[in-house]
């Protein structure tokens, strides 16, 4: 393998270690436009905390994190959540209380 091949392989590997993230909430998007590039081995919650600060969200303890309709674990990385490429994270309060059939 030539030096150029090794550089190309390394570049491809590095690119594979990144994901493009956008966070969707009803209080706005983070980032405001487009996507932000983050390490694929970074926990999802890191960007969620940044989004909460940016969007002035103070009470997100009950919120659920979904990607393409699938609930993911924010305490795991993008890789551990089997996410790659462009990742649009939907974030909002889970289904609330009520719902008794006698009501």
């Amino acid at each position, binding site marked *: 393998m030539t030096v150029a091949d090794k550089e190309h392989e390394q570049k491809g590997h590095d690119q594979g270690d990144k994901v493009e993230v956008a966070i*969707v*909430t*009803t*209080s*706005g*998007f983070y980032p405001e436009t487009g996507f932000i590039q983050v390490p694929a081995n970074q926990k999802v919650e890191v960007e969620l905390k940044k989004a909460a600060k940016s969007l002035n*969200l*103070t*009470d*997100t303890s*009950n*919120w*659920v994190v979904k990607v393409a*309709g699938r609930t993911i674990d924010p305490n795991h990385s993008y890789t551990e959540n089997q996410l790659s490429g462009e990742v*649009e994270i*939907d974030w*909002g*309060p*889970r*289904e*609330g*209380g*009520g*719902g*008794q*059939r*006698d*009501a």
Partner: protein
Amino acid sequence: MHELLSQRLFDEQVKHLTPRLAQSRGWVVHQVSYPILDFEFQTEGRTPIRLRLNCQNWNTQPPSIDLLDSAGAYLQKLPGGMSLVFNPSAHERTGRPFVCMRGSLEYHTHPSHLSDPWEGLRTSDNYTLGGILTQLWHAWQNGQT
């Protein structure tokens, strides 16, 4: 709450309910003008549901939520497999199926829930207009197909 203050808060909270958000979530926006929020949830393989929130006096009181079909007619009967949040029995005020969830006027004025007041919820991020819509969207998603 004074109507102008109510409208100002409404406008502040709905400004992020954008076409980009609607596209991302599969929502159809029918109307966003005070005091009405009219959204429809759609996804492949599910019967759509349309919710019209009347936000008069927001947020001193929660929105009154009508359950509609895609054409805008009141649902007299719910589609099958709906989450418990969507109560198929007749609400004593409207006589129709209703949203039985914290954040709806029909819930908080129901005799079974008078001990669960809106007052303690209305400033939470979970119970903004977008938060209530999101909770209902999740409830609809969690229903069976």
